[in-house]
C-alpha cells in the first residue's frame, strides 16, 4: 500500500501526528512500510491487513485481540520465528509472514554460545510501569531504595499513554483536570530524577519460581531477579464474552482499540460498535469519534451504564445511540466483522426474541470489564516473598486511584524495609474515595439566578470523585461541601472566565451568556469541544441536544476559542434561541444510526478458548458428562492449553459451568504454573537475541 494511502490518522484533535512510515519490511512477499519503532500489528493494520494467519485446528482467521502481549492471537512469523505481532517492533528489512497452521522452526543449526544468566538482588522489584508502579517507584526512589522496575512496553506510563482525556479525581493528589497522557509524561520525568530506581523497559516478567526468583525477559535476554520485596502493578486484562462470531478478526478489546488509535495513531476502523457501558467502553467510543471513526452504537447488558454519567452523556450528545438491557448476539462476516446483531435481554440476561437489530460495522469493541493481572502476585505470595499489589492488579478502578494506590504501596514497602516514613491519615480514605463507583444521580438544577449576565450550567448530576471545577473558579463560586464525591454547587457571581468549562473532565460545564443578543431572543452558550473544528466550523447549523442527547432544537456555531493553556481543548460558542438556553447541553456531530435487516445465521456455536479454538458445545458436552475439574477439561479439549495459558477463557468456562447449573464450589480451576508468557528456549539457556 502506498504510504499516503495507509490507514493512519493524519489529524487528531488532541494528539500530534506521528512520523511518516519509512521502515520498509516484507509481509507475505509484499513490501510495506512501518513507522520507526512501530509494532508489527500496528504496521499491518496501517497497511490494511487485519488477518494475521489461520488456526491449525480449523483454519479460523486470526487477528489482533488484546494488543497487550497477553493473548497471543496476533502471532506472526518474523524472520522465521513466531512472535507476538503486538509486542514486536518492525525492523528494516524484516521478513514477516502470516502464521498459517503450525509454524515450523527454522532449520538453523549453527552452534549457540551461551552466557551466564544474570542474577539481580534489588531491595524491591516492581512489575509494571503504569501509574501505580511509577508512583510507588517514586516513593521508593525518594529514599534511595534499590529498585528494579520492569515493564513490557518500550515506554513507561502503562495505559496512561492511551488516556487522552482529562483525569477525574483530586487536583491536589492525582492531577485531576490533566490529560492522562501528560500525567504519564510527568510521572516518567519525576521518576527519572531518582537514580536508585533502574527502569527496565521491553522487559516481560515470565514467571515466579519456588526458590524466590522471578524470571524476566529483558530486551531478548533472560534475567533472574531475587528481590526482598515485590510490588505487582501490572494492571488489568480485558474481560471477554462469548457469542457467535466473537472470534472474528475485527472483534477486539476496547483497550486494544485505544492502543491502535491513541498510541499508534492507526485509523483502525471505519465504523464500529461497542459492547459495554462502563467507563472503558464509553471512553473508547468517544476516542473513536475523536479519531474520526464513526460509532454506530453501544450496548450495555445491565439496565443502566456503570460508567460515569458524564461519559455516557457526552457520547449521547454526540448522537451515539446507547441501548441498555441489550447485548450483542452475533458478529458476522467473511473472515472479519461485517455486521453485528444486538438484542434486548430479559432479567436473566436471555435475549428477547423479536428485538434484534443489526448494524453494518467493521469493528466490534468488547468493553465488558477488566480483571486484575494477578497470577504472578498469587505465585510470589505462595512462595513467601513479601509482595504487594497496587493499581488495577490490586483492584480495578480509575487510573487516578491507581496512582494513589501505588503511592500508598510505596510507603508501605518503605516501612517494611525499616524506613521511618508516615502514611498520612487521610491517604487511605482518599484512596477509598478515588476507587469508589459512581454514587447517587440527582435531577439537574439550573442556578438560582438565570437572569444573570453569565452563569455556568453544571450538567454534573452524579456523584463521582472529581473536583477540578472547585479549584479553578477565580471567585471560588463552585463548592463541594464534604468530599470530592459531592456534586458541585454554584453560588451566583460568575464573571464568565470559562475556566470551569475548560477544565471539567466530564465536559459537563457550559456557560450561558445572556447579554449576547440585545433583543434577548438568542443566548450564547460556551461549551467545551474536543474535536477538530472541521467537524462543525463556524456558521454551521447544528442540532442541539439536552443532557441525555434528546433533540432540543437548532443552534449555530459562532466561534471557537483556543489557548495553549487549554491543552487542545477548544471552547465553542453556540448561539441558541433564548428559550432553549437552559435545556441545551450540547450538539450532535454524527448522523443517525441506521439499522439493517436482521438475517438468520447458521453459526451459533461460539468459540470459547481462542487459542485452541474450542467451541462452547464441546465444553457443555463434557460438563454434562460430569467433568468438574477444569484441568480435566483441558486434558479432553485443550481449553486453556494455548499460548495465553488459559488467561482468556478461564472465567468464560466458569460462566458456562454456572449456566449449566453447577455450583462453582464444586469446580476445580486451572492449576497455575510458570510461565505467564512464552519465550524462546535458547533465551532461557543464556542466548542473547535481538528483539
Amino acid at each position: 500500500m502506498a504510504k499516503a494511502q495507509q490507514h493512519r490518522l493524519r489529524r487528531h484533535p488532541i494528539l500530534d501526528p506521528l512520523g511518516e512510515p519509512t521502515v520498509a519490511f516484507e509481509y507475505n512477499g509484499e513490501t510495506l512500510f512501518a513507522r520507526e519503532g512501530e509494532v508489527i500489528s500496528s504496521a499491518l493494520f496501517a497497511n490494511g491487513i487485519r488477518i494475521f494467519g489461520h488456526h491449525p485446528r480449523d483454519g479460523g482467521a486470526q487477528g489482533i485481540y488484546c494488543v497487550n502481549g497477553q493473548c497471543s492471537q496476533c502471532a506472526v512469523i518474523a524472520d522465521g520465528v513466531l512472535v507476538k505481532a503486538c509486542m514486536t517492533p518492525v525492523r528494516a528489512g524484516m521478513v514477516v509472514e502470516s502464521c498459517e497452521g503450525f509454524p515450523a522452526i527454522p532449520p538453523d543449526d549453527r552452534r549457540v554460545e551461551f552466557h551466564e544468566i544474570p542474577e539481580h538482588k534489588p531491595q524491591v522489584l516492581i512489575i509494571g510501569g503504569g501509574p501505580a508502579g511509577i508512583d510507588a517507584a517514586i516513593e521508593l526512589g525518594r529514599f534511595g531504595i534499590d529498585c528494579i522496575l520492569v515493564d513490557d512496553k518500550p515506554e513507561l506510563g502503562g495505559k496512561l499513554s492511551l488516556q487522552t482525556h482529562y483525569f477525574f479525581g483530586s487536583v491536589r493528589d492525582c492531577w485531576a483536570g490533566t490529560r492522562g497522557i501528560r500525567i504519564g509524561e510527568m510521572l516518567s520525568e519525576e521518576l527519572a530524577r531518582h537514580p536508585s530506581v533502574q527502569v527496565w523497559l521491553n522487559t516481560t516478567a515470565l514467571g515466579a519460581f519456588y526458590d524466590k526468583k522471578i524470571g524476566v525477559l529483558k530486551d531478548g535476554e533472560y534475567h533472574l531477579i531475587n528481590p526482598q520485596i515485590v510490588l505487582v502493578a501490572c494492571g488489568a486484562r480485558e474481560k471477554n464474552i462469548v457469542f457467535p462470531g466473537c472470534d472474528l478478526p475485527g472483534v477486539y478489546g476496547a483497550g486494544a482499540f485505544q492502543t491502535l488509535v491513541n498510541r499508534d495513531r492507526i485509523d483502525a476502523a471505519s465504523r464500529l460498535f461497542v459492547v459495554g457501558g462502563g467507563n472503558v467502553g464509553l471512553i473508547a467510543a468517544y476516542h473513536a469519534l475523536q479519531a474520526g471513526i464513526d460509532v454506530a452504537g453501544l450496548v450495555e447488558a445491565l439496565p443502566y451504564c456503570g460508567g460515569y454519567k458524564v461519559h455516557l452523556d457526552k457520547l449521547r450528545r454526540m448522537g451515539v445511540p446507547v441501548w441498555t438491557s441489550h447485548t450483542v448476539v452475533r458478529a458476522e462476516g467473511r473472515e472479519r466483522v461485517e455486521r453485528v446483531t444486538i438484542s434486548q435481554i430479559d432479567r436473566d440476561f436471555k435475549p428477547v426474541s423479536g428485538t434484534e437489530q443489526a448494524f453494518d460495522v467493521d469493528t466490534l469493541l468488547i468493553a465488558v470489564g477488566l480483571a486484575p493481572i494477578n497470577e504472578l502476585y498469587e505465585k510470589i505470595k505462595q512462595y513467601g516473598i513479601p509482595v504487594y499489589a497496587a493499581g488495577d492488579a490490586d483492584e480495578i478502578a480509575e487510573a487516578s486511584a491507581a496512582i494513589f494506590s501505588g503511592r500508598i504501596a510505596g510507603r508501605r514497602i518503605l516501612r517494611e524495609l525499616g524506613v521511618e516514613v508516615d502514611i498520612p491519615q487521610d491517604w487511605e480514605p482518599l484512596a477509598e474515595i478515588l476507587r469508589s463507583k459512581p454514587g447517587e444521580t440527582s435531577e439537574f438544577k439550573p442556578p438560582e439566578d438565570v437572569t444573570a449576565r453569565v452563569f455556568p450550567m453544571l450538567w454534573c448530576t452524579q456523584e463521582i470523585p472529581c473536583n477540578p471545577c472547585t479549584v479553578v473558579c477565580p471567585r471560588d463560586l463552585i463548592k463541594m461541601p464534604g468530599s470530592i464525591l459531592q456534586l458541585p454547587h454554584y453560588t451566583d457571581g460568575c464573571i464568565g472566565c470559562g475556566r470551569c468549562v475548560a477544565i471539567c473532565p466530564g465536559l459537563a460545564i457550559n456557560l450561558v451568556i445572556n447579554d449576547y443578543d440585545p433583543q434577548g431572543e438568542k443566548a450564547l452558550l460556551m461549551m467545551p469541544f474536543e474535536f477538530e473544528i472541521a467537524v462543525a466550523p463556524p456558521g454551521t447549523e447544528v442540532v442541539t441536544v439536552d443532557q441525555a442527547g434528546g433533540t432540543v432544537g437548532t443552534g449555530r456555531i459562532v466561534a471557537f476559542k483556543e489557548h495553549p493553556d487549554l491543552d487542545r481543548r477548544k471552547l465553542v460558542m453556540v448561539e441558541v434561541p433564548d428559550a432553549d438556553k437552559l435545556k441545551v447541553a450540547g450538539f450532535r456531530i454524527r448522523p443517525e444510526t441506521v439499522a439493517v435487516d436482521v438475517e438468520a445465521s447458521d453459526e451459533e456455536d461460539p468459540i470459547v478458548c481462542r487459542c485452541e479454538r474450542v467451541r462452547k458445545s464441546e465444553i457443555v458436552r463434557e460438563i454434562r458428562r460430569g467433568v468438574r475439574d477444569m484441568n480435566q477439561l483441558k486434558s479432553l479439549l485443550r481449553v486453556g492449553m494455548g499460548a495465553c495459558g488459559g488467561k482468556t477463557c478461564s472465567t468464560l468456562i466458569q460462566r458456562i459451568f454456572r449456566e449449566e447449573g453447577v455450583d462453582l464450589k464444586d469446580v476445580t480451576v486451572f492449576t497455575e504454573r510458570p510461565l505467564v508468557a512464552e519465550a524462546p528456549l535458547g533465551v532461557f539457556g543464556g542466548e542473547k537475541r535481538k528483539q
Partner: protein
Amino acid sequence: MAQAFDAIVVGCGSVGVPSAYYLARKGLKVLALDRRSAVGQGENKAAIGGVRATHSDPAKILICRESLREFSTWKETHGVDIDWKPGGYCFPVYGEETEGVLKGILPLQKSYGLNIDWVDTDAIADLVPGIEREGLRGGTFSPEDGQVSPLKAAVAFERAAMELGAEFRFNEPVVAYLRDGDSITGVRTAKGEYSAPHVVLAAGADAGRHSEMLGLNIPVEPDSHEAGITMPVKEFLKPLIVDLRPGPEGKTANFYFGQVADGAIIFCYTPKELFKGDNRESLSEFLPVLARRMVSLIPRMRHLLVRRVWRGCYPMTPDGVPIVDNVGSVPGLTLAVGMCGQGFMMGPGTGMNVAELVTEGRSLLPPEVQVSLRFGRDYTGKKEALK
C-alpha cells in the same frame, strides 16, 4: 452401612485408572477413589507420555509390551483418540561406555522380540534433524515404542471403566483401612465407608502415607523431577530422544524430550542430585539448565517458545523396580506402587496384572519374572542396567 463393592482401587492415576478398567473388565463391581478432583491429577499429568518396551528388566519389558499394545490400538478399539504417536525411542550415543551398555542389553531385548537395534550416525542424524554430530557414535532406535497423551489416556481409561460399571469418586481421601483380623475389608474416606474383599493400592507418590495406615513398610519415597512443554510446531521430530550423558553443568544425569502428537515439544531431565520429597513447585534453575542441553544437542530448538513448566514426582523404590504384588500378610490387599517415574508407560500392563492378582491370586508374568516385582523382595538387589 458401608456400600459394598467387589474391589476398591485407591488412587486414580496412571496405574489406578487402568487397574479399575481391567478389574471391571473381569466383571467386578469396582470403586475407584482419589483424594484429588479428577483422574490423573497427581503424577499422571506430569508425565511426558513416552511409552517403551525396550527396558532391560524382563518384568518391565513384558508389562510395557502390554501397555504398548493397548495404547497403540486404543483408538481402533474404543474410538477415542489418546494421541498415540508411533515414533519410537532413540538414544543417540556420544560415549564409548554408554555404547557398551546399550549394545550389551540388545540381546536380552531382542530375546523378548523387541524391535530395537544399534544404528549408525547417519541414521541418527536422519531421525534427529539438526543433531550435533561431533562425537556422535550412533545410537539405538526402537521404532515400535511411542508416545501417548497421559492426560487423554487417563480420561479414556476412566470412561471405558465407567462403561463397564466402575464407579469413580473424587475429593475423597482414604483416612483408614477397614480390617477383619489381618484381612482388609474396605476403606473409610472423609465421606463414608466402602467395603470390598479386595483393595488395590495405586496411590503413587502417596504410598508412604498409606503405609502407616496399613501398618506396613512400603518402601516408596518420592523425589521430584521437572518438565516443560513448548508451543506446537510442524512435525520435525518423530522419536522420543534420550541423551544419557550427564551434563557439563553438574546438574543433569540425563535428559529426554520428544514432539507429542499435537506438535509441542515436551522435555524433562533427571537431576544429578535428587530432589527428595513431593514438592511440585518449579525451580528457576530448570529452564536455563535444560535449555542449554537441548539447544546444544539440536541448535534449532532455540527458537521453540516455551509455554509451561511443572514438577512431578517419581515414587521411588530402593532398587528402582516397582512393587506389583498381593501382600501375603494382609489378605485382600494388592499393591501397585513405586513405579519409579514410569507409572504411565507401565499403567495398562500393570492394570492387567493387578486384575489377575485380584481375581486369580497370581501374576500374569512368569514366576521367575514376577519375582522382581514382589513386595517382600530384597530391595538392596542389583539396579537395572538401563533406567
